[in-house]
């Protein structure tokens, strides 16, 4: 029963990890931008929702604000930081450092406005219901999994059937193709940032109710997204999805065997091994070099 309970908990966590990670993976895969500030997008969306919610404007407006904030942040960052750096043929590291810097700035600004402690979105949905003897599931767990299914469904259709999706996927397979197809790289990368940022929103909002928010959690979100992207295989949305789910499950099920302070180490040991042994990840095609 404990294992089943932990599996459900793990799926809930994993669904949110997968959503966030696929956002990062999509951006990274298609634009090759090491968007470390993805964690900051998460923070912005989460705190905007929290702010609108505690101000009494309700959930719908909160979701709208969080989504708008996430998209705006992603696009602005792309336009005013990444594009200028890349115009100067900046190396990946230049982009990474700038992104990292912005992440620090956002974390501290949010901290100054909302405080550095935890804040929690109060909702009756976080209260668990006993499904059967000893198995408690909160409505938020179902919402998380439902969100994951819906978002991935839409994303899958989009990547498979729309022109834009096809070019994004082509881009992920081979960044060189963007020129060959005569696509406007600026437009494509703006699209990647929009979609990638939207994918953060459900996880950001739900985390606010389940585990609470704090300005420093962007780091953790980013590390998990990075781990899932690399373990899943850069450029592979399906791989990242699987890896995100697996990381969530592993984190939860590990409690059966070890104390929880080891779970993060387990995640990153896996990441480290993957990079050394199989840098192309679970479903990745291209080699690391």
């Amino acid at each position, binding site marked *: 029963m*404990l294992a089943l309970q*932990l599996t459900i*908990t793990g799926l809930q966590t994993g669904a949110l990890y997968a959503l966030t990670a696929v956002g990062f993976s999509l951006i990274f895969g298609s634009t090759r931008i090491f968007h470390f500030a993805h964690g900051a997008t998460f923070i912005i969306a989460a705190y905007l929702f929290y702010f609108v919610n505690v101000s009494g404007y309700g959930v719908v407006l909160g979701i709208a604000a969080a989504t708008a904030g996430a998209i705006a942040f992603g696009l602005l960052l792309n336009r005013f930081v990444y594009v200028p750096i890349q115009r100067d043929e900046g190396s990946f590291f230049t982009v990474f450092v700038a992104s990292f810097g912005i992440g620090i700035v956002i974390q501290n600004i949010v901290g100054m406005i909302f405080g550095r402690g935890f804040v929690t979105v109060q909702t009756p949905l976080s209260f668990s219901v006993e499904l059967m003897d000893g198995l*408690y599931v909160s409505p938020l767990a179902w919402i998380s999994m439902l969100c994951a299914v819906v978002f991935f469904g839409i994303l899958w259709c989009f990547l498979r059937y729309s022109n834009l999706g096809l070019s994004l996927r082509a881009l992920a397979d081979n960044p060189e193709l963007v020129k060959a197809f005569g696509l406007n790289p600026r437009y494509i990368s703006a699209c990647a940032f929009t979609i990638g940022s939207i994918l953060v929103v459900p996880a950001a909002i739900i985390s606010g109710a389940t*585990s609470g928010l704090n300005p420093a959690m962007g780091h953790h979100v980013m590390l998990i997204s990075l781990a899932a992207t690399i373990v899943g295989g850069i450029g592979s949305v399906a791989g990242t999805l699987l890896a995100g789910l697996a990381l969530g499950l592993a*984190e939860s099920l590990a*409690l059966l065997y070890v104390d*929880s*302070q080891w779970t993060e180490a387990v995640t990153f040991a896996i990441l480290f091994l993957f990079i050394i042994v199989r840098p192309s990840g679970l479903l990745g095609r291209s080699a690391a070099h």
Partner: protein
Amino acid sequence: MKQIKLIFAAISCMSILSFGTAAAEDHTIGALFPLSGPNATYGDVFMSGSDLAVEHINADKMLSGPLSIAYEDSQGLPQPAVVGMTKLVNVTNVPYVLSAFTGVSKAISTLGNRNEVVAVNGGGVGPDLAALGEYFWNVIPLVNLEVRAVMPYLIKEQGIKRVVLIYIDDPFGNSILDELESTLESAGGELIETMSVPTTAQQFSGIAAKVRAAKPDAVYIASYGAQQIQIVKQLRDNGVDQQLITYSGYLVPDALALPESEGIIATGQGVNYNSEDPVTKRFVADYTAKYNRAPTAYNVNYYNATYLFALLAQALEAEGKEVTGANLLAKRKEIGTFDLVGGNVSFQENGTLLFPIQVKTIKNGKTEVLDTIDFGK
């Protein structure tokens, strides 16, 4: 080398930014409080206690000259604290330093022992603070005392036997683990499962599942700050409806306001503010008048820490001895028992004050005292 010159140039620019050092008074003691950074609000709380003590001491002319405190900013972190301590020891030359926070206290304790400067903690409750050497004193009861107070009470009054412990994986949490094990054993309870959480964790639904599976009578939570609040909330969210037990660190406004806190049992330092002894009466009256709010245990502790210095220095001056760290230590051991806020209290062998412990419960966002356990008598 060019680079080195650059550094010195940069440093000499800095000298204009000299930090106001305390004027050379007859008596100066130091204080390492968080004056900036996320914990700065604590600094204000601590200072309000020590500043009031200085006013009283100087008004009473307890010492041959006026007393003042040289405040240094520790930010609540080890590295800045050591920088500040070095300055207090080597430049300001103080014999006595007020300290706060477990990490800060541990970091400066070696400097204190090396240079024979007394450091006094009135804020941290980690039990290892009792083992930082002769020159490190605590004017606050440490958390092991709280565990020793609450468990026998609960076993007797509420019939709680099987306890699960959730503890933060740091020295504080680990010492609670040790303390709880031995206390429960001698009091007739049982520690059926322990779960440690890393300092950065914020997801506890898995922990909650394990707690439910263990089917305890009560859950003891040993963490601090926001994490502790999260643990309580998520345990309640995830179907843990057993009695929750915790310690003084939980009694902060944020936690009291949480609906899930209802019914939690917590312990805390017992200060009888209604005591008739003159020191307590004067403290309560003047504190309330000066700051327009009722004092808390932290205010009391730093008032006491400062007042303790005055008592010791007064005794030393009466004998014509110099007020040094070594002499202060000798004097404290000689006297042993002091009239401070909260009554007549005595030091244990390890330099920690014995205080009574109160067992409280949270009702409608307020604490209610269930019992007071007095170890001293």
